[in-house]
């Protein structure tokens, strides 16, 4: 045990003596999130709205007034046809289009129901989401007002239908946070672990460790533990930054989010070990973890591109990418606020991947030079 502790300490020396690497490891998540953060505009002020109002009655007028009165929106255009919407968005002055159904007030009064469409420019999904959320809230408050003054007791129901143009699946900053988490954890755990073991091989110190009574499991643990801690630090930074800087709330259970992250960390560490058992050189370890792990995380995990639209083969490959399941799970828990029962599948898949990979990488660890 004392051996192990001394060795873990040694590993921390390696990490912290290399100032540049330490800085990169600790600052990388912060930098990535800040970059993402800049790409997001959460501020909604004076968003131009285009209105298509075929009814032009007291209800639609009231809603438009309410929207303008909020200070968030200002009508820039009245449209004569919904077909103009796309053109208006292209001009760039308009962030939201409000499309009322025909005979809005009449329908509301007689059937108790009326439809309004909120179309936003999905190219900036965060902005779009915020804008439509605000608009929905304002419309809902009009509905409340209406109910209060109602004498007939009819439960008036205005159903806003939200649509994002150009980016219907709302890929964006909200989705970036889980993606960045997946990338950083994979990077720290898999890449750094494999590189640090490969370094011992390259320098020849592994030869000395093997020719000693040091248990292989200790060698492995001493490599894994420091990066485990580092990734926990990174996980914490990412979560704090995303909640307080990017205002991406943790909608669901923090506990299950952490469980999910821990499982993913184990998978990544085991992958790092596995890679290191196959290579002799740091450069090769770096390339393999870069090519075989990071690339799929970026391209196939659904972080940047929707996997659903990819060819069959790529979709199949994406199924075995741990980051895909992790990112999916994080989205469900963190963004959508679903309960743990909704991520049972993700937990099970990551859990079994972790077990299999750890067993295989321990078995693969060489007690000799070949």
């Amino acid at each position, binding site marked *: 045990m*004392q*051996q192990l502790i*001394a*060795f873990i300490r*040694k590993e921390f*020396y*390696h990490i912290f*003596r*290399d100032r540049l690497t330490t800085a990169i490891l600790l600052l990388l998540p912060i930098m990535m999130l800040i970059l993402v953060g800049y790409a997001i505009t959460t501020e909604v002020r004076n968003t131009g709205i285009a209105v298509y109002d075929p009814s032009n009655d007291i209800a639609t007028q009231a809603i438009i007034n309410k929207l303008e009165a909020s200070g968030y929106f200002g009508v820039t255009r009245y449209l004569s046809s919904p077909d103009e919407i796309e053109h208006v968005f292209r001009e760039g002055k308009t962030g939201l289009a409000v499309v009322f159904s025909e005979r809005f007030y009449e329908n509301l009064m007689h059937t108790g129901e009326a439809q309004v469409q909120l179309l936003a420019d999905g190219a900036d999904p965060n902005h779009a989401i915020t804008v439509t959320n605000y608009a929905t809230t304002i419309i809902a408050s009009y509905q409340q007002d209406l109910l209060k003054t109602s004498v007939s007791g009819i439960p008036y129901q205005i159903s806003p239908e939200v649509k994002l143009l150009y980016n219907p699946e709302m890929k964006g900053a909200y989705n970036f946070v889980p993606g960045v988490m997946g990338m950083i954890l994979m990077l720290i755990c898999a890449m750094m672990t494999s590189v640090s073991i490969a370094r011992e091989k390259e*320098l*020849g*110190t592994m*030869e*000395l*460790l*093997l*020719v*000693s*009574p*040091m248990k292989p499991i200790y060698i492995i643990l001493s490599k894994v533990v420091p990066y485990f801690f580092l990734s926990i630090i990174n996980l914490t930074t990412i979560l704090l930054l995303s909640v307080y800087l990017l205002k991406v709330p943790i909608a669901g259970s923090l506990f299950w989010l952490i469980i999910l992250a821990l499982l993913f960390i184990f998978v990544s560490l085991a992958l790092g070990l596995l890679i290191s058992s196959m290579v002799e050189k740091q450069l090769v370890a770096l390339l393999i973890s870069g090519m075989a792990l990071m690339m799929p995380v970026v391209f196939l995990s659904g972080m940047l591109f929707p996997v659903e639209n990819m060819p069959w083969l790529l979709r199949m490959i994406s199924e075995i990418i741990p980051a895909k399941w992790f990112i999916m799970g994080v989205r469900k828990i963190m963004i959508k606020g679903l309960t743990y029962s909704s991520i049972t599948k993700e937990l099970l898949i990551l859990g079994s991947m972790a077990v299999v990979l750890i067993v295989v990488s321990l078995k693969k660890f060489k*007690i*000799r*030079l*070949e």
Partner: protein
Amino acid sequence: MKVVTVQNISRNFGKVEALKDISFDANEGEIFGIIGPDGAGKTTLFRILTTLLLADSGKATVDGFDVIKDYKQIRNRIGYMPGRFSLYQDLTVEENLKVFATVFNTTIEKNYDLIKDIYQQIEPFKTRRAGALSGGMKQKLALCCALIHKPSVLFLDEPTTGVDPISRKDLWDMLIRLKKQKITILVSTPYMDEASLCDRIALIQDGRFLKIDTPAAMTREFDKILWSVQSDTMSKLLADLRRHKKVKTCFAFGETHHITLEDSTLTPGEMKNYLTGLGHTGIEISPIAASVEDCFMDLSGNQTEK
């Protein structure tokens, strides 16, 4: 007592035969030198004996334990210093030593006596990172690390390659002191002059042992006539000697040239006449006893054609 036994060890890497049918024993408290150039198979042999590689065929034991079956026991009782500097360059001298003490479940204090002589030489630099040490210092630190657990057998793979003559001498003084503590030492070196410091030596070339014996017996058994020849123009002398029909081999050996003769009828006088005739001055010719290097060059047969 035989501490290391090796029987018919062979090992190939693909098509390359790194070791061919190697057999030898090393006794307790003996310095056994494996002498040969780079690429002769020394490192492969050491790796097999230190349980890092498996031989294709043959058997070997270290301290009574089989190198394959009992590798764990062997790893507990040997010290190993690989050919290239294999310590943590980013850790300090003292930290390196501590790390290796821990690896072997011991402390610096427990075995300080054993390493004291060498460690005292590097102790002034104990807070310096190992990567910033000079070649000789690095080797001394590596030796300390290999000795920290008081091993019964010490494997030193080319500890003096690239090290200056002074540090080499320090290192050998240390080995001779260790030998007195009954530690068996297997050491490989490309420096033939270090052979005489070993109790017994094996000459290795292309994966084969050319000969195993004590340095004295080996040089005694040199069966050719060997002369040392000198003149004022050494580079011309080399060419002229090689042109002589009765000269078998001719090599520069420091300030003189060593020649072996095809036939024993030639006398130094005749040779002197031959050289004087070619315009040489300051000629000195004397029959000499062979050095290990002469033996190696003779046995290896790796000689330039005349």
